[in-house]
C-alpha cells in the first residue's frame, strides 16, 4: 500500500463531534436542535458504524443512572453524595449534579423512541438498585443511534455523518482547537475536518494493561477493545489539562467472560463468598474503618468491595463465588404457594439469562459450555484487569468547565464541558471527575456539551484558516506507518519480524507488559510503588521512541498503529499521576505499597498537562471545593 496516493478530503463544519457512542449520539441529538435555530453545521465522525458503535454495541440489561425526580424517588443531591462517596471523595459535585439534573429526560426519550423498560403492575419502572432500572436492552444502541441520525437529518445539508473514519490528531490554531485529522479505514483517503468547536466523545481506554486472558480471550475485555484511548490522546495532545488520570477502574465480574454482577447483587440479592462460604463483606467489615469516612458509609464504595475480595485471595481463600443458587432458592422460598413458586422460578431463570444475553452474550456461552445452571450451582467471580472509564467507577478524563449556576468560580470558565483548551469540549469517558454517568449519563453529558459547543460556535463565528504546511505535516505523520512498511518490509522474509520497524500488535503487548508489571496490573495484585512506577516510566520512554517506527501493511493495521499510540499516552499520564498522588485512596483499584494509607493532604484532585510547546509534563494539585 502506497502512502503517496491518498486523496486529501477537506470537510468544513461548525461543530465537529468525534465519536459514535452514547455521548456522541446525545450530542448529535442536542446539537441538531440548536444548530438549526442558529444556522450552524454539525458533523459526526465515527470509527465504526453508529448502529453498533461504542460500549453499548452489544446492548445493556439495565440503565444504571435514573433518578426519578419527577416521581419524588430521589434528589440530585442524593446522587451527588453517592458518587462522591463511591470515589472516596474525589468528584466534581458541579459536573455530577449537572448530569443528574438532566438524565431523567434522556431516559424518558429512550422509552418514547422504543426502548422497552421493565414496568411493575402500577406502570412504574422496575428498579434493580436505587439508581438502576431494568431494560430489555439488546437494541438500546440501535434505537439511540436511529434517533441521533434522524436528528442530524433535520439539518438537511448542514448535518453530516462520516462512518469508518478514524481520528488521530487534533488540529490547532494557536491555543484554540479548530479541527481534527484522520483517515478512512475503507479507502485511501486522508481527512481534514475544520471546525469552530470540537467535541471529543471517543470513549475510554482498554488493553492498556495486560488482560488476564491472553489467548483468544484477549478480545473478551470487560469494556470493549475498540475503546482505545483516543479521547485522552486527543485532549492531551491539544494541551488540555487532565484530571484523575490515576483513577482507573477494576471491575469484579463473573470470571473470564466478565458477565455483569449488578443484577445478581442488587435485583436477586445474591451474596459473594470465599471458597469456605464466608461472606467477606461481613467477616472483613473492620477493614472498612481504615478507609473512613468513605469505607464506613453505605453503600460501600466499589473499590473497597474489591479490596476485601483481594484480601481473601491473598490469604488463599479463593475461588470467590457468587452464590446464585442460594439467592434464587431464597427468592423462591419466599413464595408459599407451590404453583406460584414454580412460576417465579421460571421468571427468575429467564431474567438471569437475559441479564447476560442483553449485554455479555459470552457469559451465557460460558455457562452453557460449563453446564452451569445458576439455580443449581454458584459461579466464580474475579477482578478484571484495569480500565480507563470515567463513565463508570473510574474517573479519568479532561478537566472541564462546570455550569455557571452550579460550579464554583474556579471550576467554571465560560462554556459547560469546555476543556482548558479554547473550542475543545469533552463528555462521556472523555471528561473526568464525574463518574457514574453510565449509558444514560454519557448520552446526557453529550447533550450538555453539544449545546454549549453550539453557543461557542455562535460566539466565535470566524473559522480560523489552517495553513497548507500544517496539513501536509499532519498527513505525513498520520500515514507514516504505511511508508515505514513500504520502505522496509521487503528486507526480511517475515513481514512481522523486521529490525527496522515494529508492528502494532507487538507494540501493544509491550505496553501491556510494562503496565501490568510496573503500574500495578492484575498479575501483581494491583500493587505498585515509586520504584516500580519510575522503572515503568523509563521503559515507556523507549516505547515512545519506537512509536516512530510503527509499521502498517494496510488500513486496518494503520488504525491499530494509532490506537496503540493513543493507548501509550493514556498509559504515561496514568503512571505519572499515580506517582504524583503519594497515598493509597482506592485500594481495590491500585495499592501504593510505599504509601499504603489514605492521607488528608490528598483530599484533592491530581491533574496533569502535557505542554505541546515544550513537550514537558506538569503535575497540578487542585482543591476539591
Amino acid at each position, binding site marked *: 500500500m502506497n502512502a503517496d496516493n491518498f486523496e486529501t478530503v477537506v470537510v468544513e463544519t461548525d461543530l465537529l463531534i468525534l465519536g459514535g457512542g452514547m455521548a456522541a449520539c446525545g450530542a448529535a441529538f442536542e446539537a441538531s436542535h440548536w444548530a438549526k435555530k442558529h444556522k450552524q453545521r454539525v458533523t459526526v465522525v465515527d470509527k465504526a458504524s453508529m448502529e453498533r458503535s461504542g460500549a453499548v*454495541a452489544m446492548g445493556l440489561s439495565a440503565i444504571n443512572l435514573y433518578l426519578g425526580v419527577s416521581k419524588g424517588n430521589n434528589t440530585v443531591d442524593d446522587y451527588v453524595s453517592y458518587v462522591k462517596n463511591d470515589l472516596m471523595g474525589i468528584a466534581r459535585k458541579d459536573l455530577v449534579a449537572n448530569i443528574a439534573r438532566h438524565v431523567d429526560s434522556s431516559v424518558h426519550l429512550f422509552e418514547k423512541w422504543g*426502548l422497552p423498560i421493565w414496568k411493575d403492575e402500577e406502570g412504574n419502572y422496575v428498579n434493580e438498585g436505587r439508581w438502576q432500572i431494568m431494560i430489555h436492552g439488546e437494541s438500546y444502541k440501535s434505537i439511540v443511534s*436511529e434517533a441521533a441520525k434522524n436528528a442530524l437529518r*433535520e439539518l438537511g445539508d448542514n448535518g453530516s455523518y462520516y462512518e469508518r473514519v478514524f481520528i488521530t490528531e487534533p488540529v490547532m490554531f494557536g491555543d484554540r482547537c479548530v479541527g481534527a485529522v484522520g483517515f478512512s*479505514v475503507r479507502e485511501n483517503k486522508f481527512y481534514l475536518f475544520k471546525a469552530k468547536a470540537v467535541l471529543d466523545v471517543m470513549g475510554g481506554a482498554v488493553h492498556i494493561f495486560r488482560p488476564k486472558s491472553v489467548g483468544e480471550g484477549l*478480545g473478551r475485555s470487560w469494556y470493549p477493545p475498540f475503546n482505545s484511548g483516543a479521547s485522552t490522546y486527543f485532549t492531551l495532545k491539544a494541551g488540555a489539562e487532565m484530571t484523575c488520570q490515576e483513577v482507573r477502574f477494576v471491575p469484579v465480574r463473573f470470571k473470564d467472560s466478565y458477565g455483569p454482577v449488578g443484577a445478581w447483587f442488587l435485583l436477586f440479592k445474591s451474596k459473594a463468598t470465599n471458597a469456605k462460604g464466608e461472606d467477606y463483606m461481613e467477616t472483613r467489615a473492620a477493614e472498612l474503618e481504615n478507609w473512613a469516612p468513605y469505607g464506613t458509609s453505605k453503600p460501600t464504595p466499589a473499590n473497597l468491595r474489591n479490596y476485601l475480595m483481594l484480601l481473601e485471595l491473598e490469604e488463599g481463600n479463593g475461588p470467590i463465588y457468587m452464590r446464585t443458587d442460594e439467592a434464587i432458592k431464597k427468592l423462591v422460598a419466599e413464595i408459599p404457594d407451590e404453583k406460584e413458586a414454580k412460576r417465579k422460578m421460571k421468571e427468575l431463570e429467564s431474567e438471569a439469562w437475559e441479564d447476560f444475553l442483553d449485554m455479555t452474550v459470552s457469559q451465557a*456461552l460460558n455457562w*452453557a*459450555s*460449563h453446564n452451569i445452571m445458576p439455580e443449581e450451582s454458584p459461579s466464580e467471580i474475579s477482578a478484571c484487569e484495569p480500565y480507563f472509564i470515567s463513565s463508570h467507577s473510574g474517573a479519568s478524563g479532561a478537566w472541564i468547565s462546570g455550569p455557571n449556576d452550579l460550579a464554583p468560580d474556579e471550576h467554571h470558565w465560560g462554556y459547560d464541558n469546555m476543556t482548558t483548551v479554547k473550542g475543545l469540549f469533552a463528555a462521556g469517558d472523555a471528561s473526568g471527575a464525574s463518574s457514574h454517568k453510565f449509558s444514560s449519563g454519557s448520552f446526557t453529558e453529550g447533550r450538555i456539551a453539544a449545546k454549549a459547543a453550539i453557543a461557542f460556535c455562535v460566539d466565535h463565528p470566524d473559522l480560523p484558516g489552517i495553513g497548507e504546511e500544517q496539513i501536509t505535516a499532519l498527513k505525513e505523520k498520520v500515514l507514516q506507518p504505511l511508508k515505514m512498511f513500504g520502505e522496509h518490509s521487503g528486507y526480511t522474509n517475515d513481514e512481522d519480524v523486521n529490525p527496522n520497524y515494529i508492528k502494532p500488535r507487538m507494540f501493544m503487548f509491550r505496553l501491556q507488559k510494562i503496565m501490568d508489571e510496573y503500574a500495578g496490573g492484575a498479575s501483581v495484585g494491583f500493587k505498585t510503588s515509586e520504584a516500580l512506577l519510575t522503572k515503568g516510566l523509563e521503559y515507556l520512554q523507549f516505547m515512545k521512541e519506537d512509536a516512530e517506527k510503527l509499521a502498517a501493511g494496510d488500513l486496518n493495521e494503520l488504525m491499530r498503529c494509532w490506537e496503540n499510540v493513543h493507548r501509550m499516552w493514556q498509559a504515561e499520564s496514568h503512571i505519572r499521576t499515580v506517582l504524583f498522588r503519594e497515598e493509597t485512596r482506592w485500594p481495590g483499584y491500585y495499592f501504593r505499597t510505599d504509601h499504603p494509607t489514605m492521607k488528608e493532604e490528598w483530599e484533592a484532585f491530581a491533574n496533569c498537562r502535557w505542554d505541546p510547546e515544550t513537550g514537558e509534563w506538569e503535575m497540578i494539585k487542585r482543591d476539591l471545593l
Partner: protein
Amino acid sequence: MPSFVINDKCDGCKAQDRTACQYICPNDLMVLDKEKNKAYNRAVDMCWECYSCVKICPTQAIEIRGYADFMPLGGVVQPLRSTDSIMWAVKFRNKKVKRFKFPIRTTPEGTIEPDAGFETGSDDLKSPVLRTEPESL
C-alpha cells in the same frame, strides 16, 4: 475463533460492495475474501463476542465458538433477531437446550422522531434547558 463463518451458508452478501458483517463490526474485524466470496474474521483474538455480525447476517452464516482458552467445547448460544424481539437458543455442553425470547423494541424501525412529541421550553442558547426540557423531565 470467536465469530466464525460457515462456508456453505455465506454468499458474500451477493458480492455487494460490502458485506453486512463488514458494515456492522464495531472493531472492523470482518472482511470479504473476494476470491472465495466469503467473509471471515481477520483477528479472532480482538473479537469482543458482541454478536453484532451474528445478528445481522442475512443468511445466518455466522456463529460464535467460545474463546478456546477458557471455554470447553460444546456450548452454543445462537440468536434470531427480528424487528421487535430476539429469540435465543442456548445449547449446553451436556446437550440440554434452553430457549428465551425477549422484546427489543416497541416502535417500528425507522420511525423515531427525535423530539418524541415533547416541546422545548426555552429558546435561550445560554440557559441550562436542554432540547425537550422541561416537559421530558
